């Protein structure tokens, strides 16, 4: 396994590397498999070359046969023609298998490297949006596209085109030069011109399509609101307007886009014409014989098959480059926590005692998300005595989740201390901290696997009895017992086979199973309906007994059962006390608590 910090790893890079073309950086990712790709290119060249050679050899055979020599003069050509007839299909088939195999091997490795990089830098801010993550994954997969459809066809064209030009140059030098010019124009100039010409129309169309798409989504998703307020007819008129604009743009640009098809046909036809014209002149002045003329013209005619796939490649490479730019944009993000690599690789000497006393003390904690951003946490002081349950409440944007991300070591604070059992955790390696602090992050992920595997994430060696015990504490055991396959039940993608309440309880059971000293529960009820919410909070608080627990929440459900409540607004603690104490005094808590 290649270590993530070896100097050759293209994902770990200096400033200069960062500014390089994303396409070249993606190609660098595939370098480990270059031998297989070279084989793929050679096979592809054999396939394309067979097609061209077939017509050239056949032309020579006919031209020779026309002079009625003995059959032995033709025997080699006859065998060659038959062999070429078979070799084209066979080498094409093998080429596709070899390139795809190499590309999938590369993809498997690229995935691991991208993952290792993500796991180290943990740019968790980006994980809020599911779209972003799935785009990142798609961008990773576009490596496959780059290798199979972006890189191999042009290389095959270069090899075959070069060989064909060389061969024709031997037959008749001007003929070879002519073909070289024709192939360069059709294979390079026309695709580049097409890509350049379509950039404008592409942008215009994308803009018009974007408007149409937004209007359509508004119309469909906002349909009840539109119908209820009698505004649907007006909205449909807007959709039709956007549609008319898109159609107008597309029709106006059709003339530009058709140019490349015409140019390709023109270059092909005129090169064949040139070969014929030059060839006839050459026969007249005796530079070549009539046999060479037939070979020259028919080879030229067949040679344009070599560049046929290239226009599609040019368009595809543009899209792949964008994917690459996005991918490296994410991967080049600096880590959100400073990792002391030495300490982490050696295993270091853990400073935090795993059996530490579980009290938590937060002092003067300050965090902001950028030098010019306002403070998300502006000097927080907070204490969780060992075994106590403490709630942090406040309006959205008050900095509650930032507090959770500091405790779980997802980012470095800009100032202040967080002590667990008397040891400051803010400069310790993340995994050391998470040995004592664990919990339920915001939007916990349920993996598309079985219940058992989802639970054993938290403790890989756990036996079934331990799993059931955790399920019982999270009050999920009953539901699981009712499932025909019990712990082996597959939960579906994102755990959508379970109800919202069950997903939260599963995440809770997982946290209990991890058996940390400190449990952080970040908005555990955010997406639940009110019925389920009450029940889940109830179960959370019972399950948390015995841990030092920090419950982060935005509503007041169950707060009468916690030991102490901190009210946070604009990054500061504005009130603290028990439920009763806070209700007794004038302030934010009472204002919102008494509905």
């Amino acid at each position, binding site marked *: 396994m290649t270590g993530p910090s070896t100097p050759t790893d293209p994902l770990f890079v200096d400033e200069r590397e960062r500014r390089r073309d994303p396409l070249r950086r993606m190609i660098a990712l595939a370098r480990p498999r270059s031998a297989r790709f070279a084989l793929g290119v050679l096979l592809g060249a054999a396939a394309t070359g067979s097609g061209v050679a077939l017509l050239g050899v056949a032309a020579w055979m006919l031209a020779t046969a026309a002079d009625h020599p003995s059959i032995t003069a033709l025997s080699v050509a006859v065998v060659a023609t038959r062999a070429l*007839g078979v070799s084209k299909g066979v080498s094409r088939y093998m080429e596709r298998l070899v390139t*795809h*195999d190499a590309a999938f091997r590369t993809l498997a490795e690229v995935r691991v490297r991208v993952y*290792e990089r993500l796991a180290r830098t943990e740019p968790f801010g980006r994980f809020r949006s599911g779209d972003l993550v799935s785009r990142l994954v798609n961008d990773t997969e576009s490596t496959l596209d780059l290798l199979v459809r972006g890189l191999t066809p042009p290389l095959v064209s270069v090899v075959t085109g070069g060989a064909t030009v060389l061969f024709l140059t031997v037959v008749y030098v001007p003929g070879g030069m002519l073909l070289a010019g024709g192939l360069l124009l059709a294979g390079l100039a026309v695709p580049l011109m097409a890509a350049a010409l379509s950039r404008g129309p592409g942008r215009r169309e994308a803009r018009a399509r974007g408007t149409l798409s937004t209007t359509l989504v508004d119309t469909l998703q906002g349909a009840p609101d539109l119908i209820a307020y009698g505004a649907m007819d007006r909205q449909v008129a807007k959709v039709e307007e956007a549609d008319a604009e898109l159609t107008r743009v597309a029709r106006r640009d059709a003339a530009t886009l058709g140019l490349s*098809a015409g140019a390709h046909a023109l270059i092909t036809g005129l090169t064949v014409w040139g070969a014929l014209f030059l060839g006839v002149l050459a026969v007249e002045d005796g530079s070549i014989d009539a046999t060479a003329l037939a070979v020259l*013209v*028919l080879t030229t005619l067949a040679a344009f098959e070599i560049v046929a796939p290239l226009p599609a490649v040019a368009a595809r490479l543009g899209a792949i480059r964008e994917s690459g730019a996005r991918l490296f944009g994410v991967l080049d993000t600096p880590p959100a926590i400073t990792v002391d690599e030495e300490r982490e690789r050696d295993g270091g000497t853990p400073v935090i005692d795993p059996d530490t006393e579980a009290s938590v003390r937060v002092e003067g904690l300050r965090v902001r998300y950028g030098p010019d951003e306002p403070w998300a946490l502006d000097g927080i002081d907070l204490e969780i005595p060992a075994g106590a349950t403490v709630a942090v409440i406040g309006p959205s944007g008050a900095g509650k989740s930032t507090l959770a991300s500091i405790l779980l070591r997802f980012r470095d604070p800009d100032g202040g201390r967080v002590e667990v059992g008397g040891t400051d955790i803010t400069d310790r390696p993340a995994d050391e901290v998470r040995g004592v602090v664990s919990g339920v992050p915001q939007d916990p992920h349920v*993996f598309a696997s079985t219940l058992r595997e989802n639970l054993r994430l938290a403790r890989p060696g756990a036996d079934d009895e331990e799993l059931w015990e955790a399920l019982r504490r999270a009050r999920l055991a009953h539901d699981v017992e009712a499932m025909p396959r019990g712990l082996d039940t597959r939960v579906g993608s994102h755990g959508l086979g379970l109800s919202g309440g069950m997903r939260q309880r599963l995440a809770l059971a997982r946290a209990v199973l991890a058996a940390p000293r400190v449990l952080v529960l970040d908005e555990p009820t955010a997406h639940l309906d009110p019925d389920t919410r009450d029940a889940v909070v109830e179960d959370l608080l019972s399950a948390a007994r015995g841990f030092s627990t920090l419950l982060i929440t935005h509503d007041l459900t169950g707060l009468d059962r916690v030991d102490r409540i901190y009210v946070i607004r604009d990054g500061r603690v504005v009130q603290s006390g028990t439920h009763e104490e806070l209700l007794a005094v004038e302030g934010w808590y009472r204002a919102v608590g008494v509905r």
Partner: protein
Amino acid sequence: MKPLDPRLVRTASAVRSHLAVTVVSGVLITGLILAQAWLLSRVITGVWAGDGMDVVGWMIAAVAGVAVARALLSYLSETSALHSAARTKSQLRRELVAHVTGPGRVWAAEDDDGDGGSPQAGELATLATRGLDALDEYFSRYLPQLVLSAIVPVAVLAVVFWADWISGIVILVTLPLIPIFMALIGMHTQQRTERQWRLLSRLGGHFLDVVEGLPTLAVFRRAKAQAAIIRQVGEDHRKATMGTLRIAFLSAFALELLATLAVALVAVEVGLRLLGGHMDYQTALLVLILAPEAYLPLREVGARFHASMEGVAAADQVFTELERRRDGGGDRPRPAPTGRPSPAASGDIRFEGVGLRYPGRDVPALSGVDLTLRAGEHLLLTGPSGSGKTSLLSLMLRLAEPTEGRITVRPPDGEPVALDSVAADDWRLGIAWVPQHPYLFDVSVADNIRLGAPDADMERVRRAARMAEAHDFVSALPQGYDTLLGERGARLSAGQRQRIALARALCRDAPLVLLDEPTAHLDPENAAAVRTAVARLLEGRTAVIVAHDTGWAESVSGAHLRTAHLPLPTEGIVR
């Protein structure tokens, strides 16, 4: 999937004109191919026989003419194809939108995920834009090749038969073998591929799953250990995929092999007969140049099949959507709207044994509801999730019609009439609705507020905003009431969106108000502001307030308040 969907031809007139253009240009291109082959063979053999430039000169010039003509034809047919594609897409989109938003369609006021509207709104929008865009490829690449693959082989075959019947037979025998072999291989691989599909998609989705779950993995210190598993799954994925590809590529292999082998056979066979003096050089050369042309269109069609079928599949989805029966009340006579609010909205409303079952659902959303709402009354409707509180609002909004029982309304000083005898548009003019998750549009704040009263002047908009406790934060926006709200009102917090929706309801100034858990997802501060605004909205109006608990009773207290509990539809009857 059919290569040429008859519904596509029927529905879109642009397709018919495109087909005509394609056939004409196909015929012309075929003629040019034949002409070029004849000219080339004639010039080459002429020069071999000793003809000089004086004899073949005009033929060489003609080759240049053919080249220019072919270039012009491909330019024109490509341009026309893109034109037709644009027109066809527009036609399909408009029909789709008209169909989906037309009357007689059932909408849920809000579904289980708190997302209103059509559950597949995103999918439909993608289908209507990106999905249909795949038709470009179909029109400009696939259809012309399909037409050529019907014309060129026949024309080439005819010419080759005329020139040399033996070569004609070789082509005639091998040509049909290609589609036959491809179909046989296709049928075999489809079964195997389908069997492997689930495995492949599970392995392929693993990476996404792990990356999405990275924060969770990190919390449990499993993030680094996963790398080995990703490697293993990637390797499994490769093996499984290659197993499928080895078979899937066979069909292209058969095509390529047969096409090239046939050309080689023809070449050797004419070469040997030419050697034996049984045929002349020009004929032999003509046959050699034409033979690959017979197979070329078939190969092109094969190569473009998959990319183009995306467009056909998108069109197919559109047709499926269009053919879907306008579910729910589609057959009922619909009274014509008068454009004036129905007076019934300020009267009593009575539910008698009303039930609702959404199309395609097994369980009813509501059943046996008996309920009377008297004019001026504030009805607080409580009940567990799934009891159909929101569905009851859907019925009152006429987003759906009852599937059992009936709803009657009695205008003040009038006789009770069935609700469905009132035009839905007129009825809704008398309703202001504030859903749990109001949908805000990416237009100005003012236009969002006057959604239900497009003629309202700024004075009325501001008054509504003030009453909805929205004026202060709206004034603080960069362009005040002219600020664009962004996609789904992204500029605003949930509480602010809720207050804009209340302003919308206040601006509508309707006698009947429907509120759906207006504070369910708000933090306490915003909830308090919303409550204040709701109290103002309810003044002097009839209202139904859906709420999860009775906590609401305190804030909407008053002489008009009445509470009703809605049990689960399977449990019993509401009184």
